């Protein structure tokens, strides 16, 4: 799949020239990544929209990187001329997550921001969207955060239907039958 990425490299260069301190990468066909700080995102998006023709916002997404205590926000914009997808990515502090409200640039961000606020607890100061979106009377932690344990929640909220208690684990049964002792440090490699 080795194709030349001329268009992609060009876009990466254009952004690089316009903004200092950002990292751009022509990843693969039709895809360019730009990593920026939180403050730069709105100016990059506006620049791309007004100057480079990236008029259409396809997607906005939030990813929880629990290990590094960060949220990653990704804006994917698309240009009708070059037909490239530009990913503008930024990382924000997970403890005090805040991002600039941008539903004036693209109106559908209203919906995205409502969802991200509800599901991840990211605040958008100045944003006036309805507080409740998908969830109703939710008082627990924002559920899409990775430290929200679905299984625990399900076990607390629902009950298992009776009649399935006799299930057995194949690996355990075999080990028991043969007297094998699986050491604790190896168990993380056992079948789930």
């Amino acid at each position, binding site marked *: 799949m080795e194709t030349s990425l001329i268009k992609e490299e060009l876009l990466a260069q254009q952004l690089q020239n316009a903004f200092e301190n950002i990292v751009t990468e022509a990843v693969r066909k039709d895809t360019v990544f730009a990593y920026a700080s939180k403050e730069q995102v709105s100016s990059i998006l506006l620049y791309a929209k007004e100057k480079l023709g990236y008029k259409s916002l396809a997607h906005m*997404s939030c990813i929880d990187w629990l290990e590094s205590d960060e949220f990653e926000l990704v804006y994917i914009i698309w240009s009708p001329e070059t037909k490239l997808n530009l990913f503008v990515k930024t990382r924000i502090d997970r403890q005090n997550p805040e991002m600039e409200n941008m539903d004036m640039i693209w109106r559908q961000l209203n919906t995205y921001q409502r969802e991200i606020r509800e599901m991840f607890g990211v605040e958008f100061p100045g944003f006036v969207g309805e507080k409740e979106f998908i969830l109703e009377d939710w008082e627990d932690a924002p559920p899409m955060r990775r430290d929200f344990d679905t299984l625990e929640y399900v076990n607390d909220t629902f009950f298992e239907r009776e009649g399935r208690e006799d299930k057995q684990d194949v690996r355990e049964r075999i080990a028991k039958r043969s007297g094998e002792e699986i050491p604790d440090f190896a168990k993380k490699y056992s079948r789930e």
Partner: protein
Amino acid sequence: MREKSTTLYLGPQHPGITGNMMVKLQLEGDTIVKATTHVGYLHRAFEKLIERRNWMQTTTILCRFCVPEPDPPEAAFALAVEQIEGREVPERGKYLRSLVLELARLQSFMLWYAGQSGSTGLYTVGQWSVGDRNYVLDLFEELTGGRIYHMYIWPGGVRRDIPEGFEDKVLRTMDYIEKRIDDYDRMMFDSAIFQKRAQGVGIITKEKAMEWGVVGAPLRGCGIGHDVRKDNPYDAYDKLDFEMGIFEGGDVWARARVRQFEIRQTISMIRQLIQNLPSGDYLNKMPNPMKWTIPAGSAYGKVESVRGEFGFHVVSDGSDKPRRVHARGPAYVHGVSLLEDVLIGQNLADVSFIMNSLGVCPPEIER
């Protein structure tokens, strides 16, 4: 005399949509002054559940993102995974994928006929098209083993090769449906009632369309020609001969005309796909699903569904489970903020009519 203001809760069950969704309407007389959408009746937390599923298990949960069109989510996810992994799809696999996607579009168009005409009271077309849609579902059953949820498109290709004699069956069905849609058109598009109901209703202007991120038939109904299959061709679409339906007006009528045009394009594409189906492998098989890891990276895979661009933002951290799978259905942009805006000034009786024309599908808004 001042007209009395009324608040009306429309839904969650009503004929404008496939699924459950409520719209709170502020009415003066029967004119809407404010509309507020309420979603959440169909939230099944798929994206959260995927955190605990491996890549293979994810492929079977995706189809449930959207009931009327379960294949575009599968395809968009597969495209995103292939981009991250660099997995090639064999030619035959690409053609079969496009075939399934077009069949999915076809049956979805027919469902749209039913919804669009039904919401004006023209029930006959609805009965016809839903009845005839079953012939398409029969094809799916034959090909994939399921009528509604196919779980057929996998990263790397498709799940099974076509069964014997399938090509003939598809062509015969296409001949039949092609004849039938002429009947639908006579009944629906030629009907004075439908024309009167549709023209000038639910207008989206060109400027608004870009600003609000409108996609698919509603966008092409504003005279703006964008279609993922043309712009960023995937699977076998770069080898197919087809046209976009572009109509001016931005109202329900224009959107209906787009679909009326495109259903014929779809039938033609299905014929092309069957006629040019290459031989060879249909799947570039993934390793043992229990130990299948995808290198770290992210990608956005998108396909054109009947209602517009269906995209998946997939993030992998290099493990055997996806880090984040975030779906973006066309209804996500059409069904919430845009709908609230478009409904202002419209008649109460047109609400479900407009919703249907925008392709509002709650299961993909809340997932």
